[in-house]
């Protein structure tokens, strides 16, 4: 049997889905870890990015943070954090993934506020809006498409990174692949391929769904401009 047939057989076995540690369990873990990491990343990166963009300072720092995290191997954080005071379990994994979610969120929030037309900002100030009001009522709404683009990039990145959590027994769909490698190619070949397929489909699916969301929250006049390309280019994204 070639690996593809093996993979089909593996995917067709209902027990592989419903067993403890089966696909459904792992999918739940994967989504939980990813959602928590992205939420944590948003909680940190968005306020900071919006504020830095509003004051117009810290652009260099944003670039520096993006480039630095690009060079940190995911596995390093995943192995180091459990050995600190955080202890084993899900928290270190979630924090490690959040670290990789922050650069796209931060850079896009910053760029989103910076790209607001200065005349718009001036007009808002002229109408008597305070700094905080300008940020809340003018800059934030105009930055929403950028925030959505950053969210999409970060979420896909985290889904991919979460697969690596299996290296440190952190759960998620990657666990199926790792277990398959543990079994060896002749026995686990199908399982490896099936696990890879599940992870890839999940990533592409999330990317697709969030692309629709991004489009939905982008006001109509902004959709068909070159802004979209610019939004996706706001930060170089690490690969995991």
């Amino acid at each position, binding site marked *: 049997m070639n690996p593809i047939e093996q993979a089909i057989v593996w995917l067709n076995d209902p027990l592989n889905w419903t067993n403890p540690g089966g696909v459904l369990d792992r999918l739940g873990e994967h989504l939980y870890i990813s959602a928590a990491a992205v939420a944590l990343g948003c909680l940190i990166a968005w306020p900071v990015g919006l504020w830095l963009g509003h004051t117009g300072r810290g652009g260099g720092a944003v670039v520096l943070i993006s480039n630095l995290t690009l060079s940190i191997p995911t596995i390093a954080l995943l192995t180091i954090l459990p050995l600190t005071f955080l202890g084993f379990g899900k928290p270190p994994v979630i924090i490690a993934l959040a670290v990789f979610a922050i650069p796209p969120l931060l850079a896009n929030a910053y760029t989103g506020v910076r790209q607001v037309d200065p005349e718009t900002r001036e007009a808002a100030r002229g109408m008597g809006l305070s700094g905080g009001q300008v940020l809340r009522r003018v800059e934030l709404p105009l930055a929403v498409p950028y925030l959505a683009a950053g969210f999409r990039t970060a979420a896909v990145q985290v889904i991919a990174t979460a697969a690596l959590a299996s290296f440190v027994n952190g759960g998620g769909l990657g666990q199926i692949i790792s277990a398959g490698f543990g079994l060896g190619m002749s026995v686990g070949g199908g399982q490896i391929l099936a696990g890879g397929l599940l*992870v890839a489909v999940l990533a592409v699916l999330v990317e697709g769904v969030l692309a629709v969301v991004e489009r939905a929250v982008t006001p109509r006049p902004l959709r068909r401009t070159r802004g979209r390309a610019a939004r996706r280019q706001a930060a170089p994204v690490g690969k995991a």
Partner: protein
Amino acid sequence: MSFRGLSSLTVLAGERFAYEGPGNPWFSWRYVRDNSETILAALREHATLTAQAVVIAAVVALPLAVVAYWFRPLTGPILALSGVLYTIPSLALLAFVAPYVGTTNPASVLIALVLYALLLMVRNTLAGLNQVPEEARDAALGMGYGRLGRLLRIDLPLALPGIITGVRLATVSTVALVTVGSLIGFGGLGDLILGGFRNNFYKAEILTGTILCVGLALVLDLLLAGIGRLLTPWARGSVR
């Protein structure tokens, strides 16, 4: 003795990490001295895999970007395909490749590395080519340059900043990505990181691998930035 065995069992059961203390420092010169050969071998493997991946990717990416540049209808499909491929998590890609290439073959890792580096380079090279000013292209046409001559003498030199950005991004992200190969034992410094984790959480080994990995990325990035500065003397001051 049996007492000790019992306590390490509880640690394995996932309670809390109990190895804090002087026995397991985060960094130790003694570890580096005693294992210098292993460390250097890992560093060499890491650098070799990175270099091979980046060079192969560059050789393929350049013609591909030129094709996308010359034949405009192909630009969309090439970029869309590369976007979808880039979405696929590295672990999944490794799972697709390994059953066919084999788990005892570093080529499994290399294929995944080349693919991701390729996508970064195609995108950035194309962006660089598209930034060539229309006037320069018109002038070249008026001076009687043919298609190939214009590409070699006008377009590619002017696109150099974009090309170099692509190579730098690809190199840095490849250095971090090589570590994923440690799943099948060809992860360069990633083998140290994961090996340290599996070897009773040997912190010195983990951190040495991490530091060297980040260091390698920074050194290569600076090196490429320097080469870029030498190659594009006209861009000094405007390019980082």
